[in-house]
């Protein structure tokens, strides 16, 4: 495929930069703009070095160029506070928004679970939930696709160095949003999320534990097969997504123990929690791009329906 969908990344921080490096390898996405608010930001300088157009005037600096540069996809890696305004502006220029902030204006999206559904509903803004959500919800879904899950609980353990100030300032948002998405996307009747931050040196690789309580006695064979199928799906965009132990079956409890190592593009490998966010965002964007390229998804028409 020679033609690529052109994209802008809003937010030149660690996440935005990692996303940029990943996007530059994409067969269907071409990152064109990096948008920041601080002229002196190292992220903008890095983007310039990588050949991108940049602005330090925020989204307003991007808007006049969107049509001319044919920007059809935007990634928002800023904060929940400004996301709504960013979305309103880029949507008016006809772009689809992939939201990496906790704002969650659009539907939650965990690519191997519900992206198709979001796209067929014409969503022009999808939210990437949380790092813990991206790491665990695929497997909650893998189990709930086999049989009813009354309760699903996840424990995400991340290294201290990979927990940014946004997460720290509003850690309740992590637990609430993740729990909510475990229900809405993962398919559990009730969801619960726990996050533990560990300061060990060298930093520990992100660990995730998933406990599901199935309504009826678990079908061990079917669940095991479904879990392995889903892990293979996630590994397509996060190769370091690894089942360390499980499924463990005890009564109606099904437990899985995972490690998530990142690619180490811009973020360090141990920060699998951040990597899985950028990887899932890019994966989502690529699927949008493929459908835009083959004409099966036309964002302009969906905006009218908004």
């Amino acid at each position: 495929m020679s033609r690529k969908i052109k994209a802008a990344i809003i937010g030149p921080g660690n996440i935005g930069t990692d996303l940029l490096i990943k996007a530059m390898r994409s067969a269907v996405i071409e990152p064109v703009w990096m948008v920041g608010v601080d002229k002196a930001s190292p992220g903008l300088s890095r983007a310039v070095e990588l050949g991108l157009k940049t602005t330090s005037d925020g989204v307003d600096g991007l808007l006049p160029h969107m049509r001319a540069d044919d920007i059809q996809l935007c990634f928002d890696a800023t904060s929940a506070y400004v996301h709504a305004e960013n979305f309103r502006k880029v949507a008016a220029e006809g772009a689809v928004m992939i939201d990496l902030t906790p704002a969650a204006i659009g539907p939650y999206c965990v690519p191997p679970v519900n992206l198709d559904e979001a796209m067929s509903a014409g969503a022009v803004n999808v939210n990437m939930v949380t790092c813990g959500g991206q790491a665990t919800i695929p497997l909650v879904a893998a189990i709930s696709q086999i049989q009813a899950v009354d309760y699903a609980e996840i424990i995400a353990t991340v290294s201290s160095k990979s927990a940014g100030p946004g997460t720290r300032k509003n850690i309740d948002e992590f637990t609430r949003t993740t729990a909510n998405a475990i229900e809405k996307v993962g398919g559990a009747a009730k969801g619960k999320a726990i996050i533990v931050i560990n300061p060990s040196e060298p930093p520990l690789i992100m660990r995730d534990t998933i406990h599901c309580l199935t309504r009826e006695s678990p079908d061990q064979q079917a669940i095991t097969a479904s879990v392995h199928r889903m892990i293979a799906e996630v590994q397509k965009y996060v190769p370091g997504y690894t089942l360390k132990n499980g499924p463990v079956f005890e009564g109606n409890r099904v437990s899985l123990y995972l490690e998530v190592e990142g690619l180490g593009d811009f973020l360090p490998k141990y920060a699998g929690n951040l990597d899985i966010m950028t990887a899932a965002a890019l994966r989502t964007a690529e699927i949008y791009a493929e459908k835009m390229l083959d004409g099966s998804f036309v964002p302009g028409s969906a905006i009218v329906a908004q």
Partner: protein
Amino acid sequence: MMGIENMNVKGFKVALHDMSLRDGMHAMRHQITLEQMKAVARGLDEAGIPLIEVTHGDGLGGASVNYGFPLHTDEAYLKAVTGVVKNARVSALLLPGIGTVDDLKMAVDCGIGTIRVATHCTEADVAEQHIGMGSSMGLDTVGFLMMAHMIEPEELVEQARLMESYGANCIYCTDSAGYMLPDDVAARIGLLRKELKAETEIGFHGHHNLGLGVWNSMVAVEHGASRIDGSAAGLGAGAGNTPLEVFVAVAERMGIEHGVDLYKITDVAEDIIVPMMERPIRVDRDALTLGYSGVYSSFLLFAKRAEEKYGVSSRDILAELGRRRTVGGQEDMIEDLALDMARAKR
């Protein structure tokens, strides 16, 4: 180390905070009944204990597969206890990452007067929201720095200052693993007392894994702690908390002003708590390993269960968790590690 004959704590005032209905929940697999809670709380109240903590062992919202489902909700427990105490203030524990400010609001509606917000000793900044809310609601708001043996006193002060800046009026040095030696306590409490605001209270929470609960608490008082955590009969995680009745007897002899009736607290321990216990709270080899290796005390029963299920030594599991520098809340590591160890044995 200073000998007890040199310790001058005569006339020092200390407020005792009972943990048997919160830390004790770990030892009871969170299965304490409402009747037991009420009986213990009534007894503690009548003995003159000024502060009683009531929550799931892992704090508000701790009900989970990972930490154990309790017999009743935090709400039911809190309402039961606030309904029977006459003088004592009831507190709740909250670990950001497990519980949320919604849980805090619920606990306030149940009548708590103290909120204790706990983080790992290096991660105080995750508590900004919760401490801020507790303080703005007019609660006695405590910042609770867990596993405080893992960092140097200077680093602990830095984290304590953060919690103080968010609105905490009391800061705890928490020896979650029961690992600290008396000198470790002296250094940390002493520096906190020196560096924090004069009006900020300092507290110490000990575990008895090396048999030092009472002595470490005395050293804490000597160096400026005015709140001491303990449990009647020591009911708590690991080898339990500082046994309150023992602390009271020693404090009495040393002239500390504690306001508790020794015989009454002894009776609570002997007549109510000990008969409740599912197993004796003592320094068995696993609890000793917690203290020796610096491991979070509530891992104890999880490690014992893993030994039973996977045939690997609970002592080996705990020692390895110490080597890996696990922190509070990482109970999920135990089954994961036991599976690895069982596989390696085959």
